[in-house]
């Protein structure tokens, strides 16, 4: 069984196609919910959404008409009351797909994440062509547990990869 069967074919009627390895995906970090005094919190990754297979990301360089500016506008539009879009972190899809966690010493790691062209942006049927999701990969004889070490490893790995690439910083944008 492949770990990410949903990556291989379109998952939404309005999808422009499966998410390619060479694309960049991005997520918004909102202040204050995603930060504490010492930095970016794990809340940025939204563990509950990961477990549900629906960690929302934007395809921020597939369509030049949308691009990072389109993602900024969508992220600002989607912010919760009292929140401010502070930063946008990005990652190459290929790197997210290659994040592996070691489940047994001295054995190859297993794939942690899939990136899927799920365009749904709400349960009410809203959608956007540049919306996608990160989901946990599926493995035989292996189940992700919310309080398990393997899930902690996957979350830490994904957070570390996103933190490497700051695409946009509200503090640096001149009014």
């Amino acid at each position, binding site marked *: 069984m492949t770990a990410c069967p949903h990556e291989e074919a379109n998952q939404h009627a309005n999808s422009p196609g499966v998410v390619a390895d060479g694309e960049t995906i991005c997520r918004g970090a909102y202040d204050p919910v995603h930060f*504490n005094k010492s*930095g970016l919190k*794990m809340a940025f990754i939204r563990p509950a959404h990961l477990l549900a297979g629906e960690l929302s990301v934007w395809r921020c360089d597939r369509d030049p008409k949308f691009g990072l500016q389109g993602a900024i506008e969508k992220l600002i539009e989607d912010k919760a009351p009292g929140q401010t879009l502070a930063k946008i972190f990005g990652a190459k899809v290929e*790197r997210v797909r290659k994040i592996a966690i070691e489940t047994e010493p001295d054995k190859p*790691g297993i794939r942690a994440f899939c990136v899927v062209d799920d365009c749904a942006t709400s349960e009410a049927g809203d959608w956007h062509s540049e919306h996608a999701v990160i989901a946990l990969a599926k493995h035989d004889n292996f189940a992700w547990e919310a309080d398990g070490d393997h899930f*902690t490893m996957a979350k830490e*790995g994904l957070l570390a990869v996103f933190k490497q690439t700051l695409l*946009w*910083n509200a503090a640096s944008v001149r009014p």
Partner: protein
Amino acid sequence: MTTESVITYAPLHAHAILNEEIPCAWYSTRRLASPTWQSPFSCGGIGGPAPTTKVIVLSPFYPPSHRPSFSTRIERYRSDLERLRDGWCGPGSRAPTPETLADLDRLLAALPSDTTVPEIEVNEDSGSVTLRWQGSFAKALSFVVSGSGQVLAVTTTLAADPIVVSRRFAVSHTDAIARFIESDTALAAVIAQG
């Protein structure tokens, strides 16, 4: 385009005078917005300068003999954790238990004296505490304590193919934790320089 800026600041863990060319992404919004940053600084963003900006960072110099110890530098954060109570982050959120804080104290005691103050996070659902170092290095390191008498060390190697490995230690085995860090020069660098 390269822009040169002079920035002075007094971070808690500063111990050297730096003059480096660094990606602006390494500076957090909070630091940029902090009154301790003395000069205008433009970095990255749409229409901004190149993502690599020449930055001269002047920070207080502490001779090794006067440098505050790690335990001194982290005390403020440690005190904050102790003040948290259940419900601190909304209904149902949990504060670290005394057992979790005891595990944290044992872990902190095992870390080298030149350790940089990490990012510190409390898991609202469980009350567990994570210490996290990443900085600009090829590895990221996290320690998670939850009051079980154990610490989970998670290392992410940030190569083209990122790999995440973990080790569990009894927090009482401070020598084993110290050896774990010392045995990997990349990890030692991450926690020493953040």
